[in-house]
């Protein structure tokens, strides 16, 4: 494409997939990343990547069922067209990664091995040991290096994206970024900008995320007018290893390979775990969810672990909350082959071999289902129209968002092993969409007047200089710790309106204080102090969108859990009364969906997000109650079935 260039911000799975696809189509790419792209946070993904496959297909699985599991697991909060497209692409995505040399585990016969993950009854997950994200990322990194060697990609690593550049008509025509080594700020004219900057876990202080995942890119796009959707949906992963600098993930694959979660029935039983007899162990997930067992969706597993420690007082330790995740019944060799990577992490950081002693784990903030609002164009078959310029485009023309920093694929809760898929899929799929957009625009960004770009750079230089000279006296690192504490208390597993109100006030106060940070380094060379302070200030718009979105959503949906608005279990035993109760339950469910089956959309007004709501397209799979483990599920299911059948007849 003559004279057209694209800027990609972020070099994780999504950014790299988009980059190589664009190069293949002949468009050169400037790739901006906080870190050498090979070190992006995608490396941390452990368990695997989902798709319907030859084996599951013969057991009744299909792309449609993968689609259905994803939507049901996400509590119906996703627009269904993008999810459908993703599920139908999934087998093709894995085939491509296989061709690119990913060292997927193999069966004896040499086919890709698969394991089971949460929220499904099929073995859909392809994996490369327990470092699948790393292996997938490396395959894409290698392809992008190949394009780099041909001059199609220019990498700007250790560069911080500061803002999109908009022209007079509001189109995105480039980006401003800063070299974190020389501190130089410059513009990158581009005919389209794709942000693929990942999640925002750093807002919570400690999480399972890498230090780059601070949400600043999304926030800076919001500042330029981009909308941010479903901010309140933050996944808290059930199993992580607590640490003082980070909460390290213990993959769901540990349970996928047979790991069992339990606590001693005697509170804080001090015996070594393996000497506690079976009868004195409480396998609470298996008992409460006989069908899915340890592989219930993540939001449910997290709440149960939280509940068993906080409300039932059955934490393994008295001083700190944790439960056992037990792999000791599985053969060592098998564990090494399939889970080696994550077991080494546990061993290295905890000094205990999880092959011999059950691990101690607790939930941790892990993934943001929400993200920049993006559009899509639905095809006649209910998927996405290929190469349509509106797919994955934010409300700013020419500005795209993909991967974890968009909001499209996971609704109110993400299923395990779907994130690697959504990242690679959205990256590959968006390439041609961006090309179509650029074809529809006359001229190129490089031909626009230089003043436009100079003005954008000057604005960022002003901000930078202001930070260096600010003498407000606040310590940005301590403010970050406070922000993390407030967010972790108010906006994780259990949410409460009074607490959310208080948290918002506190966070606003911290926001003001962060704006008066004093820097201890005012130098002009590799100044990490100023880069950090900038990203800290930019955490607040998203932190506030999370709190406000959570405050306004008076219901339980996926990861968003407010006990005050929980749908109750059925109580009566008498069949007639039970049927009546089920009917009332279904009424309440329909009412709840009328009010809240909507995406929250935050746009920034000064220092505060304003929230509006957008209907969700549930055109392919009508919403149904999500009933994992609820008492009275059978009665509700039957009532719901009757209701939907009647409605179908009525509309026919």
């Amino acid at each position: 494409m003559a004279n057209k260039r694209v800027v990609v911000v972020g070099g994780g799975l999504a950014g790299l997939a988009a980059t190589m696809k664009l190069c293949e189509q002949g468009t050169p790419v400037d790739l901006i990343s906080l870190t050498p792209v090979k070190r992006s946070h995608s490396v941390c993904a452990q368990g695997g990547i989902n798709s319907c496959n030859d084996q599951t297909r013969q057991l009744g699985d299909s792309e449609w069922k993968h689609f259905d599991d994803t939507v049901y697991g996400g509590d119906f909060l996703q627009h269904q067209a993008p999810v459908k497209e993703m599920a139908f692409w999934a087998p093709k995505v894995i085939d491509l990664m296989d061709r690119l040399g990913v060292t997927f585990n193999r069966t004896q016969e040499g086919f890709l091995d698969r394991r089971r993950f949460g929220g499904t009854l099929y073995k859909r997950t392809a994996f490369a040991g327990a470092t699948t994200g790393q292996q997938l990322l490396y395959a894409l990194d290698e392809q992008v290096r190949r394009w780099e060697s041909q001059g199609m990609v220019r990498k700007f690593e250790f560069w911080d994206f500061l803002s999109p550049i908009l022209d007079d008509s509001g189109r995105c025509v480039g980006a401003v970024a800063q070299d974190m080594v020389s501190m130089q700020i410059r513009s990158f004219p581009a005919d389209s900008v794709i942000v693929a900057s990942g999640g925002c876990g750093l807002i919570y202080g400690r999480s399972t995320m890498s230090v780059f995942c601070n949400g600043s890119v999304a926030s800076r796009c919001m500042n330029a007018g981009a909308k941010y959707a479903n901010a309140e949906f933050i996944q808290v992963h059930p199993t992580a290893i607590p640490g003082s600098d980070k909460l390290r993930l213990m993959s769901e694959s540990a349970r996928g390979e047979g790991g069992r979660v339990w606590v001693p029935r005697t509170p804080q039983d001090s015996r070594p775990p393996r000497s506690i007899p079976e009868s004195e162990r409480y396998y609470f997930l298996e008992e409460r969810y006989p069908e899915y067992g340890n592989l219930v969706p993540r939001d449910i597993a997290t709440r149960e672990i939280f509940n068993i420690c906080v409300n039932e007082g059955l934490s393994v330790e008295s001083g700190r909350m944790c439960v056992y995740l037990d792999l000791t019944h599985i053969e060592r060799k098998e564990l090494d082959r399939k889970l080696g990577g994550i077991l080494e992490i546990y061993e290295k950081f905890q000094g205990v071999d999880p092959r011999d002693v059950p691990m101690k784990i607790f939930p941790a903030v892990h993934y943001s289902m929400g993200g920049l609002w993006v559009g899509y164009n639905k095809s006649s078959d209910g998927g996405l129209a290929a190469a349509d310029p509106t797919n994955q485009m934010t409300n700013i023309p020419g500005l795209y968002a993909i991967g974890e920093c968009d909001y499209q694929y996971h609704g109110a809760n993400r299923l395990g092993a779907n994130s690697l898929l959504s990242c690679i899929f959205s990256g590959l799929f968006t390439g041609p969409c961006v090309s179509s957009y650029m074809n529809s625009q006359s001229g190129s960004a490089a031909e626009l007047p230089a003043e436009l770009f100079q003005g954008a750079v000057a604005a960022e230089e002003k901000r930078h200089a202001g930070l260096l000279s600010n003498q407000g006296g606040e310590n940005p690192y301590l403010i970050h710790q406070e922000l993390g504490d407030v967010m972790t208390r108010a906006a994780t597993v259990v949410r409460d309106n009074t607490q959310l109100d208080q948290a918002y006030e506190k966070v606003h106060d911290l926001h003001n204080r962060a704006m008066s940070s004093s820097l201890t380094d005012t130098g002009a060379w590799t100044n990490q102090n100023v880069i950090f302070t900038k990203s800290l200030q930019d955490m607040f718009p998203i932190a506030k969108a999370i709190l406000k979105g959570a405050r306004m959503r008076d219901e339980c949906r996926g990861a968003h859990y407010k006990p005050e608005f929980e749908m109750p279990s059925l109580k009566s035993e008498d069949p007639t009364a039970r049927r009546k109760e089920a009917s009332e339950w279904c009424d309440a469910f329909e009412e709840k969906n009328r009010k809240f089956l909507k995406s929250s959309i935050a746009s920034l007004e000064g220092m505060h997000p304003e929230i509006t709501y957008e209907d969700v397209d549930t055109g392919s799979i009508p919403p149904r109650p999500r009933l994992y483990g609820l008492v009275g599920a059978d009665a509700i299911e039957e009532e719901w079935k009757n209701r939907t059948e009647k409605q179908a007849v009525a509309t026919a």
Partner: protein
Amino acid sequence: MISPETNDSTEHHPEKVNVRILRQDGPGQPSYWERHQVPYEENMNVISVLQRIAAQSATADGRDVSPVSWDCGCLEEVCGSCTMVINGQVRQSCSALVDRLLEEEPSEIELKPMSKFPVIRDLMVDRSRLFRGLERVKAWVPVDSYYDMGAGPRQARSDQEEAYPLSQCMSCGCCLEACPQYQKVEIYRRPGETDEQFEARKNEAYDEAFLGAAPISQAVLFNSHPTGKNAKDERMEALTGPGGIQACGNAQNCVAVCPKEIPLTKSIGKAGRAATVHSIKKLFDR
């Protein structure tokens, strides 16, 4: 997460951790030692020590200083960012636990930047030569396209089990720091030089210098892949060219320091044999 950070452990531990850091303000600047002190916490690693140091921005004797610069990412030893020389040994700072380090040396922890790469500032170094090495050996599978062409070639489990350890290389640079044959290449920017010119001059210097274990092992990985081997001859050209496999002195330090326990010497052995075959083949092809 919500879990409070208390611990019942009654083990003896110091109240403060002493840290000695070799700092440098920029490329070509002199380096200097600086002492810091942070309160001891349970389960601390070098990353959390550096985080506390950044927050207090003052030396052990109370002098205000700028925060120490260092590189880190995942904090769980899969990204390769945070390599440094800790108590004289090159390793990842995330998995360097304070308790273990104090067992090695109770009086203090010593942090230095890697010596084989140019220092950018303090503990941050420029490892672009390592990534350039991956480009030199064409460490990728040369596929036709990214369209849907069906599955990749079927592979025996034993082949996957050979390949997987090699593909866990996270480009941390430990093997290069430990290698006696790998010498620092530092190119300073000339006044008036553009980014592109400076980059080109750096790459030229890198391309003459020893590749080191990590890129050699990647060449072996891709030479063994059913599709990757289609570019084997080009990789062997790089491995038999200047700075190639012949520069290896067989010190075997690389394999000893690799945090991922990658069989690097085995890779080097394989590459060496392939290099011999390649050279003989070229002799006969002339």
